[in-house]
């Protein structure tokens, strides 16, 4: 087992860890951030697997655009919540 294998295995362990914790975390914001980390790790794994096209795309789409959409959604949800609370009072 050489160094690159060790690197790969540690990345895989991180990937698994972040995947599970993104699903199990209660706080949505934390969960999104972990998901972003998951995407970045995934793109590194793909770069190591000799698929540079995928690494670029995943970094831009998974870590970039998906996460931005998730954050805006969260923002929207909070706005709606605030509005409805305002209406109540």
């Amino acid at each position, binding site marked *: 087992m050489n160094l690159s294998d060790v690197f790969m295995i540690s990345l895989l362990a991180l990937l698994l860890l972040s995947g599970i914790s993104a699903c199990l975390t209660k706080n949505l914001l934390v969960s999104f951030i972990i998901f972003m980390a998951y995407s970045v790790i995934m793109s590194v794994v793909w770069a190591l697997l000799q698929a540079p096209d995928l690494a670029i795309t995943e970094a831009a789409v998974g870590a970039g655009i*998906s996460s931005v959409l998730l954050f805006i959604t969260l923002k929207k*949800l909070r706005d709606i*919540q605030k509005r409805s609370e305002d209406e109540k009072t």
Partner: protein
Amino acid sequence: MLQTLWENRIQCVAVLIFAVGFSTLLLHRNLVKKIIGLNIMDTAAYLFLTSIGYIRGRLAPIIVGTDTDPSHYANPLPAGLVLTGIVVSVSVTALMLALTIRLYDQYHTLNLDEIYYMALREQEGGQ
């Protein structure tokens, strides 16, 4: 068997992540968490697919110079398929998130079962 599983460790990790995403998508009640589960499930399938294309000691399938010997490069087909898949999954994510916003706007909760009961009550009240 354990030997093969250790050799195919990337596939094993992909399977584990797939199962985590799948059960989140199926069983979690929070809609946004379901969407995260969906994304994780999809990327796990793509990881599995990408790992098929890798061949030990070979380079990415971008031709260097005039060297077109297939035994020097990795398999380009899985990468192409995954590229397609990633775009599909980001579209689906955007659609699901839009649905979430609409649903939250109407029912003020993300818990799907609560929403279902509210809708049921609404329907009975309307009669």
